[in-house]
């Protein structure tokens, strides 16, 4: 499985949203390695090298986790909490990419240590711009501590 050397972890239960996001990134020249995980449980398995991803090398930290909030089984908050409260993973930038613009979701995310909170615009053009801009910022402009 091509789960090594992953730069972008996209955690998104809606396959349409996922494919639109990936398209937006690719169309804007962000060709970094990317894995699409379908829920929070899979995300935790991947990040902490458990279950299907137990063979993955934990020392390889992704450059960015793109996280949806509302997902079956384990939601985005839980993933965020586990990533940010573990010394091995807390430095990975986590960007919430969600449809929710509820104040309490935004507040809770920041309390859990999110690096950025982005509401997915409904309009596709705006969505493409937003995802592309976000990708460029975190993958090209941002300096990582690892």
């Amino acid at each position, binding site marked *: 499985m091509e789960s090594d050397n992953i730069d972008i972890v996209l955690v998104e239960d809606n396959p349409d949203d996922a494919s639109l996001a990936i398209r937006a990134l690719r169309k804007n020249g962000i060709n970094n390695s990317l894995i699409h995980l379908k829920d929070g449980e899979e995300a935790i398995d991947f990040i902490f090298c458990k279950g299907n991803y137990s063979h993955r090398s934990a020392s390889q930290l992704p450059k960015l986790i793109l996280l949806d909030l509302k997902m079956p089984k384990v939601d985005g908050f839980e993933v965020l909490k586990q990533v940010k409260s573990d010394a091995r993973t807390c430095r990975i930038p986590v960007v919430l990419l969600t449809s929710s613009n509820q104040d309490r979701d935004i507040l809770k995310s920041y309390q859990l240590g999110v690096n950025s909170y982005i509401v997915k615009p*409904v309009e596709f053009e705006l969505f493409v711009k937003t995802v592309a801009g976000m990708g460029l910022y975190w993958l090209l402009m941002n300096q990582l501590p690892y």
Partner: protein
Amino acid sequence: MHSNESTNILIVDDKANNIFALEQILSQPGRNIIRATNGKEALKTVLNTDIDLIILDVMMPEMDGFEVAQILKSHKRTREIPIIFASAEKKEQRFMIKGFEEGAVDYLYKPLDAAITEAKVSVLLQLHLQKKELIRKNLILEKYALLINNSADLICIINARTLDFEEVNNAVFPMLGYTVDEIRNTSLLSYLEQDDSHAVQRLSSVNKEKFSFEIRIYSKDRAVKWLNWNIVNKDGCWFANARDITQQKRSDWEIKQLNADLEGNIALLEATNKELESFSYSVSHDLRAPLRSINGYSRIILEDHQTHLNEELHRLLGKIQGNASRMGVLIDNLLEFSRLGRRKVDKYPVNLAELTQRVLNDLDEVDRGKARIHIGSLPTAEGDPALLYQVIMNLVSNAIKYSGKKETPEIEIGATEEEGKYIYFVKDNGAGFNMDYAHKLFGVFQRLHDNEEFEGTGVGLAIVQRIIVKHGGRVWAEGRPNEGATFYFSLPRPVTE
């Protein structure tokens, strides 16, 4: 007995030496001897003085002893005074005295024997004083009885062992419908529910000196009365006072019921709020995603299959995208509207003039178009600055929008004052509306113009109304088709002014 009070003894005799002889015999500390030498004088003395005993000579000129006695016995005030007749002739007097056998009457024979005289006097005096004391006590008892029977509380004496009513006051009739005779000698327990009956029996067996309890008691018509009992337990009797607290109990119960209802309503309200919250959450989250997909895939067709598309397909895809975007805006507005419903209104003094200026500054050139906006004097009101900003913003944006097609759009913002409130208005010379539909203006998603003519979602005025109502004010509008519209909202005047 009133031993410290002296007793008055009246001696009536026409011969001074007889009086003197009696004085010698009866004279004692605490005895006050009064003399009268004829019947008339005797009667006068008795009327004016409180006399405890009369020694009456039978043989006197003018009015003899029997005549005097008859008069005294015929008057209520003097009837009870004991009389000792003094007479020389034993035989006759015995016969004459017959008429006075009732009441305290005795006789002495002359010459007087000192010992017998003193003995008779002291016995009659004693009897009389005891009687007086008894009358006094009875008077007091009568007063108490009046007090007790006048009480609205049930006052009674209950046998502490059998729990039978021994004595009971008149209150028992209005309270329980039983007469005093009906309830006397019946057991308290026979009027009680079983559990209350057990409770009372337990109290009876504990035999405390003083206690109180509340029980239900059945009245004669089988109605239940709540009585609060206070008992003093003495000499095998309960001296009991029972107060009817039925009304109080009922009120307590009603209050409890009301509180329970209220709590239920609050719980319901909270549940409804939660439901609403989760509803708006899923609206915001779940409804957006498919919209984005509709938008996105239309876009992908446009981008990736350019060569296969003719102009008509372009136009149709544009329609799909446009409608998806519009639905997104509708969802946003609806969510904002529902969020407002739950928002708490914080009240501060708000300078409406400054606020309006800020709204105008925040509207950029493009938004304002060519409209000429005139601001009159706007008094400071009390309200939530952020919410009132929203009100002004929505009303002014509307005015700009609906007057935008005029040659010279003009907008006037002003205020008037009415009793206890300020009325603010935003007036334009735009498209106006038919007053027949004025009631629809402030409904959610209600629009009087189609989207081709004027863009909008029909939430702006609903938001205005919701905010103003939350501030204790009112919104309304006046207009005529093509002759402009005026939107009014009122706010209560700040109390501090």
